């Protein structure tokens, strides 16, 4: 579904991503783990078109995304839940969800999906008229996920969904990620919480200072000595 080849991303003179290649196949949960500054968010931004890569290719179902304007990428079936949630704080929960469906024109379908995400996240229904900025961190994370789902993506990119949340909430969020995947959405997950990410991932890549240092199934990497030392606390 998503194929990244020889991707290089630079910020001015600094090379943040130094030629990475990986793929996400239909129906998988793939995770990209790595420490702070490894280039995880940069990779996500390059895929969503927020950053222009210096070179390399990003193919979504055979279409080159690096040559697609960023506002057209959503309607091709790729949505992102950005790091730090980035909900529109001054707009209501429902307005945020409608913005998620901005690229769509099927009114009936949007209403149906609105009902669907409210079912998935009942707490958002209770708060639908509230400005998003007044929600708790966990609720904002749910809103960011629901908002991304409103575009009806084939593949959902999630950047650090567990950031700043209590362990209980993290568990809940990861359950929801698995549910979304079971409903047929492919998932690319970026996480510092490597333990949780590897537990639900079909396959995983380890990103280290802009390069992929290891890859394998979730189980293989959970068992790997190097990963245990560096990311799972021994």
């Amino acid at each position, binding site marked *: 579904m998503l194929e990244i080849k020889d991707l290089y991303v630079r910020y001015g003179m600094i090379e943040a991503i130094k030629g990475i290649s990986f793929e996400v196949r239909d129906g998988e949960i793939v995770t990209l783990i790595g420490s702070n500054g490894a280039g995880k968010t940069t990779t996500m931004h390059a895929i*969503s*078109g*927020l950053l222009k890569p210096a070179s390399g290719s990003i193919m979504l179902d055979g279409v080159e995304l690096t040559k697609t*304007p*960023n*506002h*057209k*990428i*959503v*309607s091709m079936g790729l*949505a*992102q839940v*950005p790091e730090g949630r*980035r*909900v*529109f*704080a*001054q*707009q209501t929960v429902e*307005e945020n969800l*409608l*913005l*998620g469906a*901005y*690229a769509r024109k099927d009114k009936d379908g949007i209403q149906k999906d609105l009902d669907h995400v409210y079912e998935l996240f009942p707490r958002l229904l209770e708060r639908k008229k509230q*400005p998003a*900025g*007044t*929600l*708790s*961190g966990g609720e*904002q994370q749910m809103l960011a996920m629901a*908002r991304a789902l409103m*575009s009806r993506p084939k593949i959902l990119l999630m950047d650090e969904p567990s950031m*700043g949340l209590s362990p209980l909430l993290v568990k809940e969020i990861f359950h929801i990620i698995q549910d979304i995947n079971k409903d047929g959405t492919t998932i690319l997950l970026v996480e510092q919480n490597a333990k949780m990410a590897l537990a639900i991932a079909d396959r995983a890549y380890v990103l280290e200072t802009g390069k992929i240092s290891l890859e394998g199934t979730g189980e293989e990497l959970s068992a790997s000595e190097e990963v245990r030392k560096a990311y799972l606390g021994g």
Partner: protein
Amino acid sequence: MAFLSYLIGGLGLGSVYAIIALGYSMVYGIAKMLNFAHGDVIMVGAFMAYFAISKYHLPVLVGVVLAVVVCTILGVVIERLAYKPLRHASSLSVLITAIGVSYFLQNSAMLLWGTDTKIFPTVLSGSLTVGSLSVPYLTLITILTCIVIMIVLTLFINRTKTGRAMRACSEDKGAAALMGINVNRIISITFAIGSGLAAIASILLVATYPSVYPTLGSMPGIKAFTAAVFGGIGSIPGAFLGGLVLGVVENLSRAYISTQLSDAIVFMVLIVVLLIKPTGLLGKKVNVKV
């Protein structure tokens, strides 16, 4: 009665400021820049209306439409050519560019249309008399226009999909792009609306103060900018309120204190308001939980 008539006159002047201030405030809210060429778009609108009505004797409405169309296009073109290439530059570079565009428009007008002052014809005379109070129709139309614009714009921003996208861009352009919003298009629309409003303001302005000259936009531009800051820049009701308050303060101080000092008093009020409430009268400060 004199007070009431000064008050209404102030509301009329304030309505013009408010319409101009809306353009400043919307552009600031979405493009995060101060478009100091905004006042000069007013000047171009005034010249268009002058040529249409006075020189070619076209109906007033045609003059209004011509001014709105030309200014709307001008606003979009200015953004495309001068500001868009600087989207990722420092705000200081953008500010200096805006001042440059302002001088460019003024000097082009001098070159094309001369530096002499042209007299805008009387388009609407007569007054509405109630008892001993007499209010010019023009003032009433000005206030009414401002109210209509305010209502339509508020509905547009709050109720339409494009309005929602504009608010999203004003909060977070990156997240807006992730929703599939074409941020450049939204910025263009914002400039188009702001400049179209400037054209309407220009006609109301020169119909009341009938001199048309290349630097006519400077002072109303600065006053409207003040009104926008005063009301809370980025806020649409703020621009409206700021414009009205500014117009009333200016007119009353001109009537009761001093004609020469009226501008100084206006700015003094601005300073006092900003000292007490730095975000302006209706400036937003939203607490975001993390």
